[in-house]
């Protein structure tokens, strides 16, 4: 079962964010909770101290009623459950809850255990003087025990109640309900949980959205496009590539499709050439004999006719066209034969110069200016010099015929250092070619010369270059001119100097 990438990513994000947010929330919450408790304890201590101080004066003057009154009043305050004063024996001397007065707490009770740890009396620190407990009524309380230390003023008082030997005179016990704190904590935890969940959901959505835009949609486009190409259909180039890896992928795909198109075209062309070759050989062979008959019989008719015979013209036509057929067949066979090339080390510049010498005097070139720019010391090419010459001959003649009124032909040869290819160009200022012509110019039997040739010249050229491991392409603009670029692989050998 295919699980979508988007889903996988969201799942991963959800799980990990849940983990992290969850843990963070718990830690934060715990911290919050203990902060509150610490705060409450501090507050409690403040309370106890304040109460102690406010009772001090009355105690000193032995005004028990005032003490009772104060304790009762404080006990009624909001935020205080009760206030009690223990004697060192554990008996409740004063209490805001009247009923408790006189009650005794054994040494091992919770309240006493704060300081009487394991029969030893210790002076615990603040944190230990407080205790949080849950009472029978289900409410959580904070109890603070503050021992009342014996001071000079206490044992020198008129009432002579306390001796100077006592260290502790009694214990103040303040009990604070933690309801509100509990409430706050509960609210807090709900809020935290809610926030965490919301955060996880939002994160997931945002992640999904971002992934969708940056990755999923481009991928879907690519999957669709590559699927089409795999089926053998061409597809429009994909648009919308940004400056990132997805953009690069999209651009790569577009480039790849172009390359595929070109390769396929070349393959088709190759295949066409091959079949034309076979066809040509077969047809040519078949045609030889009938042509023999036509030619000789036409010649005979011509020879037998009288000087003034009006039919002479006709016989002449038959003879001439038969000879033309012969030439066509021979061209076809030359093309089809694909003779094993005679390989030698060829200097392309020499070939170019030779070809130029050959054509200079021809009629078509008389009003053409030929300019050369041949890079000296070109590396040699392994190939058939004759065939290479045929290529350039072809190109030059095409150039001349593209500008019957005259023009300029520029021939260049270039080789960059370390470049495996030697580049040669033949540029003319002739009538140029349309897009369609450019596309089809190398096809066998395609000609722009309207029936004057069989359209094999460039197809032969293409075939020759393919065999040599080179290539040819064309740039052209109507009425501006045409440039053919021929590339040949350089042969790694010492450059032959003149």
């Amino acid at each position, binding site marked *: 079962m295919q699980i979508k990438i988007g889903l996988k990513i969201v799942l991963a994000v959800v799980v990990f964010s849940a983990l992290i947010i969850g843990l963070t929330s718990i830690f934060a919450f715990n911290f919050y909770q203990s902060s509150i408790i610490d705060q409450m304890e501090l507050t409690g201590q403040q309370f106890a101290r304040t109460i102690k101080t406010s009772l001090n004066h009355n105690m000193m003057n032995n005004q028990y009623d005032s003490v009772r009154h104060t304790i009762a009043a404080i006990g009624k305050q909001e935020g205080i459950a009760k206030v009690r004063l223990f004697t060192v024996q554990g008996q409740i001397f004063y209490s805001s809850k009247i009923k408790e007065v006189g009650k005794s707490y054994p040494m091992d009770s919770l309240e006493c255990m704060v300081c009487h740890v394991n029969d030893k009396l210790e002076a615990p620190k603040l944190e230990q003087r407080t205790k949080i407990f849950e009472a029978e009524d289900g409410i959580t309380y904070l109890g603070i025990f503050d021992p009342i230390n014996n001071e000079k003023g206490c044992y020198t008082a008129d009432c002579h109640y306390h001796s100077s030997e006592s260290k502790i005179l009694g214990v103040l016990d303040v009990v604070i309900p933690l309801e509100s704190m509990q409430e706050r904590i509960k609210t807090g935890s709900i809020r935290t949980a809610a926030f965490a969940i919301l955060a996880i959901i939002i994160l997931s959505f945002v992640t999904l959205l971002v992934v969708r835009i940056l990755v999923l949609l481009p991928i879907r486009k690519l999957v669709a496009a590559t699927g089409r190409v795999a089926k053998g259909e061409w597809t429009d180039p994909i648009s919308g590539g940004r400056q990132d890896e997805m953009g690069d992928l999209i651009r790569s795909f577009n480039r790849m499709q172009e390359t595929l198109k070109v390769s396929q075209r070349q393959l088709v062309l190759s295949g066409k050439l091959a079949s034309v070759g076979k066809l040509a050989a077969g047809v040519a062979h078949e045609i030889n004999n009938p042509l023999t008959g036509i030619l000789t019989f036409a010649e005979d008719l011509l020879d037998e006719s009288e000087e003034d015979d009006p039919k002479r013209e006709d016989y002449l036509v038959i003879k001439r066209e038969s000879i033309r057929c012969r030439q066509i067949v021979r061209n076809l066979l030359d093309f089809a034969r694909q003779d094993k090339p*005679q390989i030698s080390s060829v200097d392309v510049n020499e070939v170019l110069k030779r070809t130029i010498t050959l054509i200079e005097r021809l009629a078509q070139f008389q009003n053409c200016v030929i300019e050369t720019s041949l890079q000296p010391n070109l590396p040699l090419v392994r190939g058939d010099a004759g065939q290479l010459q045929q290529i350039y001959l072809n190109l030059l003649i095409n150039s001349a015929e593209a500008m019957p009124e005259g023009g300029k032909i520029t021939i260049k040869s270039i080789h960059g250092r370390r470049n495996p290819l030697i580049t040669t160009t033949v540029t003319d200022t002739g009538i140029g070619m349309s897009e369609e012509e450019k596309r089809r110019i190398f096809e066998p039997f395609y000609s722009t010369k309207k029936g004057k040739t069989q359209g094999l010249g460039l197809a032969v050229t293409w075939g020759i270059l393919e065999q040599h491991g080179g290539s040819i392409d064309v740039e052209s603009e109507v009425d501006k001119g045409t440039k053919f670029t021929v590339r040949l692989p350089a042969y790694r050998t010492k450059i032959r100097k003149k």
Partner: protein
Amino acid sequence: MQKSGKILVVDDEEVVLLSVRKVFKHSNYEIDTVQSPQLGLAMMESRKYDVIITDLMMPGMNGLEFLQHVQKMDKSVRVIMITGYATMRTALQSMRSGAFDFLAKPFTKAELSNVMHRAMQRGAMTDVPPSAETAGIGEGAGALEPGMVYTLRDHSWVRIEPDMSVVIGVEKSFLSTVGNVSGLELPVKGENVSQGAGCAKLLTDDGRAYTLWCPLSGRVLKTNSEVTEDPSLLSSSNKSKWIIKIDATAIENEIEDLLRGTE
């Protein structure tokens, strides 16, 4: 004045036989036509022919086999191979085995008639060349050295020059079949010539233009101006004069088609 002679034409296509007859309609030649090599050999048993024209590619027996049978029966007959353009190289190679000349189909009247004329002029072939094996053919390009001479039998010869270029000349036997040469048409410097194609035209007093087959492909470096100015030098001097100097671009491959020889 027109020589008489007996010709046998062998080709499986009737139209070709008719064409040959048409070409020689007004000649004094006696022409027999057959459509199979076996029939041809049968004909040879009862008649002596001067020239046999045969197709190279025939069902059953090909032209080369036929050539060997013919030579066994009659060493003196001149055999002209006709063939489609695609198999020209094979035809050229047949000259090594003793064929007199070859011609590509379709041929013009002039082409066939000139070859026939030469064949008749030649007279009896007295020296049948040794078979390919003993001629030292195919020794390999490594054996090429200046001074070596090879021939395209009865047409042209080549000699390797000290600078490894190749000069082409006309075989004496060719000259003897064409008569007085009054004009010479040669390719120009820079032109390419191909083995088996024409590389020179010899114009004679009787208005014919004989095509000389090129023995090796290459690029023309120079032509012999001495001879172009006075073509009669070709026939008159004892030592054969070269007519074209080429840079033979495919010599390693093509040299096997020629016979080792002397000028």
